């Protein structure tokens, strides 16, 4: 049931993109997302698709992993596509009963589906090529300025790290509790929403109790190892920009410029 849950979906391989600093990848992803929202003609989309394919090729992550990530939003894509296809008003090309397809409808539907696909695949390049640890480290350092407005950035990053570490442990525990409760006659396959919700209680209560116990133990273990917040802490793997990060920034800026010039119909 939980085996196929991939949160840290890191694909361990060596590539120029894997070697980039997590912060560069994060900023690059943001630039890509912005570009996808900005372009509004097919040349723009072609540029975005070409860029995406190039990035995937450089990252050496098999395309099938990217496609796997799309599974979760297939339904959303179909809905978005169909709604746009049938509901956008304009020049009718085909109609039957109350349904009609317009030229503008086809146009927006294609663009909408493409946009969603590009967003998901674009951001999954980042998660596939960055370990969760360096990703949280990168976010911590990128959002450090928020310390000024009293947002505990280090603490949030530490919480994320710990959460990621405990997901597999709690998943395993949930499996165990489920089996133990099933042996005592709890029916997890029950039909109906209310029954299903009720059958979750004997699962969630022990799980929460155990999670709190673990949290207590972990807090003690962290204190025993002299953890006292982010102050005065050094890093075992400090983040460092290299020349390749500069190259990546330049490439992303060039790409954004291309999108602005050709993808927004400025020249038309």
């Amino acid at each position, binding site marked *: 049931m939980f085996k196929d849950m991939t949160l840290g979906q890191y694909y361990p391989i060596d590539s120029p993109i894997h070697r980039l600093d997590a912060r560069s990848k994060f900023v690059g992803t943001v630039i890509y997302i912005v570009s996808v929202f900005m372009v509004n003609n097919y040349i723009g989309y072609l540029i975005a698709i070409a860029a995406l394919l190039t990035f995937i090729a450089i990252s050496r992550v098999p395309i099938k992993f990217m496609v796997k990530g799309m599974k979760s939003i297939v339904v959303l894509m179909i809905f978005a596509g169909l709604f746009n296809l049938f509901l956008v008003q304009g020049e009718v090309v085909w109609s039957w009963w109350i349904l009609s397809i317009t030229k503008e409808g086809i146009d927006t539907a294609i663009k909408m589906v493409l946009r969603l696909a590009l967003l998901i695949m674009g951001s999954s390049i980042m998660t596939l090529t960055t370990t969760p*640890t360096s990703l949280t480290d990168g976010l911590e350092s990128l959002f450090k300025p928020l310390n000024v407005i009293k947002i505990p950035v280090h603490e949030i990053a530490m919480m994320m790290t710990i959460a990621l570490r405990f997901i597999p442990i709690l998943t395993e525990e949930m499996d165990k509790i489920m089996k133990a409760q099933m042996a005592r006659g709890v029916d997890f396959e029950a039909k109906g929403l209310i029954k299903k919700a009720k059958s979750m209680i004997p699962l969630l209560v022990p799980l929460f109790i155990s999670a709190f116990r673990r949290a207590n133990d972990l807090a003690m273990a962290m204190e025993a*190892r*002299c953890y006292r917040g982010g102050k005065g802490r050094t890093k*075992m793997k400090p983040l460092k920009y290299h020349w390749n990060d500069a190259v990546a920034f330049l490439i992303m800026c060039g790409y954004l410029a291309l999108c602005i010039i050709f993808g927004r119909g400025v020249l038309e």
Partner: protein
Amino acid sequence: MSKIVEIKKLLFDYIRRDEEGNVEGITTAVDNVSLTISQGDFVAILGHNGSGKSTLAKHLNAILYPTEGTVLVDGKDTSEEDNIWEVRQAASMVFQNPDNQIIGQIVEEDVGFGPENLGVPTPMIWERVEKALKAVNMYQFRSKSPNRLSGGQKQRVSIAGVLAMQPKCIVLDEPTAMLDPSGREEVIEAIRELNKKENITIILITHNMEETIYADKIYVMDEGKIAMEGTPREIFSEVEKLKSLRLNVPQATMLAYELKKAGVPLPDGILTKEELICHLS
């Protein structure tokens, strides 16, 4: 030899309170305990559940503070707030559940957590991590996820984690209670190595008698007091007394004891199978 731990007349009360915060009852977990441990010793503290041995251990790491009496670790009073971090670095603690004390997602990152907290410069962290992992024989697993390791391996990573903080003394609170027999052996082996090679003081809290036979000294606790103290041989000679404290002696000792009662001429306090075989043949 210098004293690493000095406990003077330690008394600790757990106070139970009801919902309004009124005192409902007081349980004295540690009752008037005094002991000293020298640098480089391997000390075992034995006791059945609820004998106060874990409470005692938590005092050595400044997780609990004495209600009465004083605890000095490396000459520093644990009840003074300024000393907490020095005390915790001098006497590091390994806990029972390996899953609940590993913070990093990769073995080497977890071992680096302690030195990171101490503010050790980056290149030195790597040196310490490498040395600590090699000391517990886990270096080849350095880039693995802790979730893929066995219980014994996880516990060895935990030991490496405290070792990287370069403590003078390691306190282990029932480190083998959740492990299978082979995992137990791995962990005890690693602890003995550290004691012998690095001259680190080991304080092993346990209720498993087999683990204590290599100790230099054993303290047996019962109801918050020290009931017996001595070398393993002295302690295990008194089988009847141990039984009355609800502790089981090692199998070889038990067999020797029964044989002696039945009239076979054997010395007191046999600890291992090999020793027994040697005396019998």
